[in-house]
């Protein structure tokens, strides 16, 4: 009898967890809607947003460029090994470019952005909440969501596609360095085959769309977790962890959905 009770207890708790997560998603969606509607300040006083683009975008440049470079170099190394077996080593450029532009650029840049900029945004907003700076702003009749949260949201959304493009560009350059300069693949074939195979609308545009979607998702999660954090040191630290984990999962899940929508199906 007690086993049934214990099982029922566990099921109830599972149900409660699921419902609370669903409720939280609804709450987060309302938060996003409010945030977007009250973005007037962030746009009118663009200085605020520019400062946030600096903190989210510019300060992520180093990690994005270096990572992109290395990813491209590894792609070229690994890709050459396999392509050479089919006598297709001249398609190395195609391999590197398509992998980066379609997938690795948006996804890896998104993951790096989530861990560097996303966690920083969450920590910042969470700490402002813990030290009552948010309450102080409310007391001074300033809407903290419009003044603090919205600029950070738009800063992240604007930075993300640019970072993804920079990642892909750095990666292609890294692939060129290893493929052409190091291994000796023909430079002309490298670039010309790449140009023939990479389609502006299908590949590059879709990659940009992906990075915009990821940017919105990651920044939304970051600002929400920060604003919703329990205002203690432990609460803020847990919120930053949640940001990184949830953002990463969201990026990978959205990547699957977007790839399925964009890159498969029919005669195209």
């Amino acid at each position, binding site marked *: 009898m007690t086993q049934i009770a214990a099982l029922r207890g566990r099921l109830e708790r599972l149900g409660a967890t699921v419902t609370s997560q669903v409720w939280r998603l609804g709450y987060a969606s309302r938060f996003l809607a409010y945030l977007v509607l009250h973005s007037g300040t962030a746009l009118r006083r663009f200085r605020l947003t520019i400062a946030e683009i600096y903190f989210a975008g510019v300060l992520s440049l180093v990690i994005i460029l270096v990572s992109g470079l290395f990813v491209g170099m590894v792609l070229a190394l690994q890709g050459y090994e396999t392509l050479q077996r089919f006598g297709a080593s001249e398609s190395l450029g195609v391999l590197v470019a398509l992998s980066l532009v379609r997938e690795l650029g948006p996804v890896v840049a998104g993951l790096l952005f989530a861990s560097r900029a996303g966690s920083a945004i969450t920590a910042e907003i969470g700490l402002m909440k813990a*030290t*009552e700076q948010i309450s102080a702003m409310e*007391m*001074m*009749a*300033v809407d903290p969501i419009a003044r603090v949260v919205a600029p950070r949201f738009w800063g992240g959304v604007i930075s993300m596609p640019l970072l993804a493009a920079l990642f892909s560009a750095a990666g292609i350059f890294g692939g060129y360095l290893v493929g052409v300069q190091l291994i000796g693949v023909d430079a002309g074939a490298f670039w010309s085959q790449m140009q023939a195979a990479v389609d502006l609308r299908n590949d590059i545009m879709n990659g940009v769309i992906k990075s915009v979607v990821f940017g919105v998702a990651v920044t939304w999660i970051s600002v929400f977790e920060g604003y919703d954090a329990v205002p203690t040191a432990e609460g803020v630290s847990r919120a930053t962890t949640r940001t990184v984990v949830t953002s990463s999962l969201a990026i990978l899940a959205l990547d699957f959905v977007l790839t399925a929508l964009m890159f498969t199906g029919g005669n195209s």
Partner: protein
Amino acid sequence: MPQAPIVEIQDVSFGYDAARPVLRDINLSIARGAVVGIMGQSGCGKTTLLRIIMGAYLPSRGTARVLGRATAELDGAGLYDMRRRMGMLFQFGALFTDLSVYENVAFPLREHAALPDDLMHDLVMLKLQAVGLRGAAHLMPTELSGGMARRVALARSIALDPQLILYDEPFTGLDPISFGVIVRLIRSLNDSLGATSLIVTHDVQEALGVVDYVYFMAAGRVIAQGTPDEIRSSPEPFVNQFVNGKPDGPVPFHYPAPAYAADLEVAVA
């Protein structure tokens, strides 16, 4: 003709959920120009009462009238309008850590008044001068001591010349000198601005020295009220214990526990 009180709390009860009321049947009235203290043990509900006066929470029962309007009737715009006429000093200052001292004090001015830079500069300097920190205008909050940070926060809270100034535990963690400074500032700012001040604190002796009237709270109710002298000589046992700092009394020394003999490992003969 007596002016309407700045703050009027009538039969207010409040609880975060219905089962556990935090405030019960509170009645309070604060006249214009007065410096009033709300005192009590930690957890007696005084900070919650402050939040209700601020308009952050709405009373579950009763009315809270602040600056002439009931908080329950205010819409978003009305709430912001009310808050622009209030200033609040948070427990540890709550300065914006990414802005300098000057920018912190200028913050409410920038958000609410479109002033030319030179006029804003003079206003900020005026407020900083009033709290004695005009020379620290270029420092960042992390470079300030606790007492200085609180003074800057005070300057920020009076930036828009509020009619009502709220203090949430203003004396916590201050050294005696900073203490004296804050005490002096509370009184002088109140009088020079023609404002009304409400101090929530559990620092009894110091607060009794600066306020005109005291409300004593315990377990969510007002159990005593009066002038500082009346409070000091109050027959109410809890007030007596609190004011004189006695370790035992209505608030017991021992946390509820089973019988001592039963709890000991070695049997008592």
